[in-house]
C-alpha cells in the first residue's frame, strides 16, 4: 500500500500549451505521445481559468491537477485521485515561486517563457530539487532557489555562512556574466 504523498508529474507549459519542461514520475503515460495528449488535455481544460493570484485545481483523467500561471508560464502538478490537494498546491507554489525567484535574478529579470527557455538549465535543476522520483523533496521556494543559486558559486564558502539573498546576488552576477559571455 502506497501511503506516502506522491506526485505523478510536474509540468511547465507555455501559453499555447507547448512543453517547456516536464518530468513524469509514474508509468501512467508510457509514451511521449501519451504524455503530449495529457498535456494537451490539461492545457485546454485550464486555459480559460484565472490561476494567477491563487493556485487553481481541476480533475483530469481521474487525477488531481493543481496549477498556477505566471505571465505566459503555466505550472502544473499532478497527483492521484485521492491525493491531498493542499500538498500538491504547496508543490506547485514552491515550483512557480522558485522559478520566479531564479528568473527575476537573470539577465532581463522577466519571469516569462523566453527567459525560462534561455535559462532552461535553472528550470531543470529546479525540477530536480523539488521532486525526486515522485517523492516531494523540498517545497520552500527560497530553499529551492537557494540550492540552485549556490551551485553557481565557487566552492568557496559553505551555504550556511551566507544568507539566501547574498547567495542570490552573487548568483545573479555570475549568471549574467555567463550569458553575456
Amino acid at each position, binding site marked *: 500500500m502506497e501511503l506516502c504523498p506522491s506526485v505523478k508529474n510536474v509540468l511547465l507549459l507555455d501559453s499555447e500549451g507547448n512543453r517547456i519542461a516536464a518530468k513524469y514520475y509514474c508509468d501512467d503515460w508510457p509514451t511521449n505521445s501519451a504524455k503530449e495528449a495529457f498535456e494537451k488535455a490539461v492545457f485546454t481544460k485550464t486555459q480559460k481559468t484565472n490561476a494567477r493570484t491563487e493556485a487553481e*485545481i481541476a480533475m483530469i483523467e481521474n487525477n488531481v491537477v493543481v496549477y498556477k500561471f505566471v505571465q505566459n508560464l503555466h505550472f502544473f502538478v499532478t497527483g492521484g485521485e485521492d491525493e491531498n490537494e493542499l500538498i500538491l498546491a504547496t508543490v506547485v507554489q514552491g515550483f512557480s515561486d522558485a522559478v520566479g525567484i531564479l528568473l527575476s535574478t537573470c539577465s532581463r529579470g522577466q519571469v516569462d517563457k523566453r527567459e525560462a*527557455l534561455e535559462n532552461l*538549465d535553472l528550470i531543470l535543476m529546479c525540477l530536480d530539487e523539488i521532486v525526486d522520483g515522485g517523492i516531494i523533496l523540498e517545497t520552500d521556494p527560497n530553499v529551492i532557489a537557494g540550492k540552485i543559486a*549556490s551551485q553557481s558559486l*565557487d566552492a568557496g564558502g559553505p551555504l550556511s555562512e551566507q544568507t539566501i539573498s547574498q547567495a542570490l546576488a552573487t548568483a545573479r552576477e555570475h549568471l549574467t556574466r*555567463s550569458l553575456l559571455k
Partner: protein
Amino acid sequence: MAQPFMKKDDDDEEADYSPFLGIEKGAVLQEARVFNDPQLDPRRCSQVITKLLYLLNQGETFTKTEATEVFFAVTKLFQSRDIGLRRMVYLMIKEISPSADEVIIVTSSLMKDMNSKTDMYRANAIRVLCRITDGTLLTQIERYLKQAIVDKNPVVASAALVSGIHLLQTNPEIVKRWSNEVQEAVQSRAALVQFHALAVLHQIRQNDRLAVSKLVTSLTRGSVRSPLAQCLLIRYTSQVIHESAGNSQTGERPFFDYLESCLRHKAEMVILEAARAITELNGVTSRELTPAITVLQLFLSSSKPVLRFAAVRTLNKVAMTHPMAVTNCNIDMESLISDQNRSIATLAITTLLKTGNESSVDRLMKQITNFMSDIADEFKIVVVEAIRSLCLKFPLKYRSLMNFLSNILREEGGFEYKKAIIDSIVILIRDIPEAKESGLLHLCEFIEDCEFTYLSTQILHFLGIEGPKTSDPSKYIRYIYNRVHLENATVRASAVSTLAKFGAMVESLKPRIFVLLRRCLFDSDDEVRDRATLYLNTLGCDDSEVETSASANEFLFGSLEVPLANLETSLKNYEPSDESFDINSVPKEIKSQPLAEKKAPGKKPTAGLAAPPSGPATTVDAYERLLSSIAEFSSFGKLFKSSAPVELTEAGTEYAVNVVKHIFDSHVLFQYNCTNTIPEVLLENVAVIVDSSDAEEFSEVASKPLRSLPYDSPGQTFVAFEKPDGVPAVGKFSNMLKFIVKEVDLPTGEAEEDGVEDEYQLEDLEVVAADYMLKVGVSNFRNAWESMGADFERVDEYGLGSRESLTEAMNAVIDLLGMQPCEGTEVVPSNSRSHSCLLSGVYIGNVKVLVRLSFGIDGQRDVAMKLAVRSEDESVSDAIHEIVASG
C-alpha cells in the same frame, strides 16, 4: 557555429521565439565533442548539456550507441571543478540512466563527491549514485549512506533518506539495516528530513503490524513538527485504526483524539488530511463526524480555490453515506454554485442534490437552471445523474424534475449529454409509473428535432414497447409517422417497426396503422420497404378483422431466447459451410455480471436505453426463459424470485462457483454457475452434491449435471428441491462439487482420454426468509399504506439489544426482511435518537406487504423497534413478525 544562447536582442518580442529554434539532435551530438577538449570550457559544456536535456525533455530519444557515447563524454567532465557544470553532469547521468557496466566508470567519481566537504556535492552525488546503482555496489557505499542519513545538513540527510525510499523497492534488506539511523532522523529539527525519515521508517516496518502500531503510538504523542510528516502520520494512524477495527467493537476508537487534535493544527494541509481521515473511518458516527464537518465548512468560504475544492469534494463523499451530517453546510454550499471554478460548482450542486430534502427541491432546481447554461457537458452529465437519483428518492417531485430534464433536453448539447438525459427520463418512466405519460411525450418532442440517429432509433424502440400500454396510444402515432417523412433511412426503418408494434398491440389502431404502413411501401430505401412489407403481411392486412396471431407477434416482437452477447460470439465463431447456423447451439447462460450491477445500488444504472424496458425485469425474464427451456424444471410453474448470486468459493481458487436461488411456489432450484480457472484441465460430468439434512422441509427432486466445463467458459449445473406449496421454508444446505478431471495438452488443446474423479468442497448455502420476499418499491408510501387498510395490520415491539448505531440496527432488519426501503428513509440523520423507516415488498404468493419500522436508541446503545405490518393477507402479516421474532 550558431550560438542560440547568445541571442539577447530585447526587441525580439515574437511570441514563439526560442533559443532552441531549429535545434537538431545530430548537430547537438556533434557539439558534445567539446566534452573531450583538453581545455574544458565549463560554460560551453553546460550549454551543450542543457541542449541535450532539452531534446530529451521534448520527447526525443537517443539510440543505445548515442546514449553510450554521450555518457562516456559526460564522464570526462568530472575533471572540471565548476559547480554549475557538475550539477548539469549529475542531471545528465540520471537522465541517461547508464547500464550496469557503464556505471562503474562514474562510481569512483561519485563516491569522491559523496565524501566531499561541499554539501551540495554530497547530496546530489548520493541521489545520482542511488538512482543508477545496483545491489552489489550498494553494500560498498552503505556506510556512507548511513552517515548521510544523520548528516547535520538537512539537504544531505533528505537526499539519503529519499534514496532509501526508492531503494526499498529493489533492495529492501539493505535499507532495513539503517533502522537506527532513520529513527534518529525522525527526531530531526528539519521539517523535510522528518518527513522523509518517517516515510522510510514506516516502509521498513510496514509488514509488522505491531511495530507500525507502536510507531504511531509513540509519534502521535507529539514530536512531529513538519506538516508533511504530520499528514503521513495521519495516514498511518487511520491505517492502524482500520486494521484494529475488528478487535474492539465497543468503547472509544483508538487514536481518535489524535485525529481530532490535528483538526486544530495550524497547517491547512494537516487539517484537511485529518478531516478526510475522520470522514473515511469505518462506521464513523455522527458525533465523530461533527468536528471534521465543521472545519471543512470553514474551508468552503476560503479565498483559495484549492481549499474550497478539497472541502467540497470531501463533503460530497460524506453526503453519499451521511447526507444529514452535511446539511449544516448547505448555505455555504449554495453560494458555491456560482463559483468561478466549475469543478467546485458542480461538486456543490451534486452535494446539495444529495442532501436536499423534499421541500428544497424546487428552489434548488431553479438555481441549477441558471447554472446549467455555462458549464461544460461533462459537468452537466454529472448533474443530470444526480438529479436522476434525487428523483428516485423523492418520486413525488417527479413533475418538477421531469420538467427540468425536458427543458435541458431542448438546449444545446453533445451526444453524451443528451444520452444521459434520455437515459434518466427512461429510468424515471420505468420506476415512477405516474411519470410515464409525460415522460413519453417529452421523448416524442425530442425526436421531432433530434440530430442523433442513435438516440432517435433508441427512443422509437422504447416508444414501441411503452406507447401501446398507455391510456391513449394514438397520440404518439403522429410523432412516429413524422419520422417516416423527415428522417434518414435508419430512423425511418425503426419508425416503421414502432408503428407495426402499435398496430399489433392496439387492435383499434390497426386499420389506421395499415394505411400508414402501406405508404411506406414506396420508400426509397430497401430496408424500410422490406420492413413495411413484412409487417403488413404477418400482421394480416388483407383481412383486418383477423386477430393478429400470437405466434406472429412472438415472431416479430418477442425477444431473442439467447443473450445477445452470446449470439454475437457464436456468430463470429461460425464458419460458412454446408451446415447452417443453428441458433439452438448458442449458450443460454447469462454472465453473472449484469446481476451484480443490478444489485449494487447507487452505481450508475448502465441499463438505460440499451436495455428497455427495465434492467431488473430483463434479468428475471432471462432466468425465466433459461429455466423454462430445461425440460426437468418446466413444470415448476412461474418463477417467483431469483436471488443475487452468492459466492460459494473464495476469489482466486481453482474453481469459481456461485449460486443463484430460484424460488417457485412449491420448488426451490439452485443454479450453480461454475467457472474452471485452470487452463490445463477439463472437467466433465460436473455436479453439485447437496446435503439437505439441515433443511427438513426440502427434498431433492431433480438435478442436472454439466457435461463438460472447459477452461474459462462458465457453465451451469442445477439441483431442484421440492418444498411445501407456498410455504416460506428455510434451511441450510452443504455443497460438494463432484467432477471428472482430465488433463489438457495445452498446445493442441486436446484432453486426455482418461480422467480422475475428484471432489471440491464448497461453502454452505442457506435459504432464508428474505428469499421469499421481492423488493418492490412504491412511489407514494402513505397512499399505499392508507389504501391497504388496517384490516390485517399487525403491530408489535421488539428489543434489539445493544447495537453499534441506529443505521446498523436498521440495516440488519432490512436485510432480514429483504424488502425495499422507500422514499429515502433508509438514511438515518446524524445525531438522531430515533428513526422511522418505510419498507415495501411482495411476499411469496404475490402478497403485497408494507412495513413501518420505528427505532429508538438510548444512552447504552440499546435499540428498541416498533414493527407495523400491513398486507393483503393476515397470515403474511403474521409471517413477517415471525421472521423478525426468530431472526
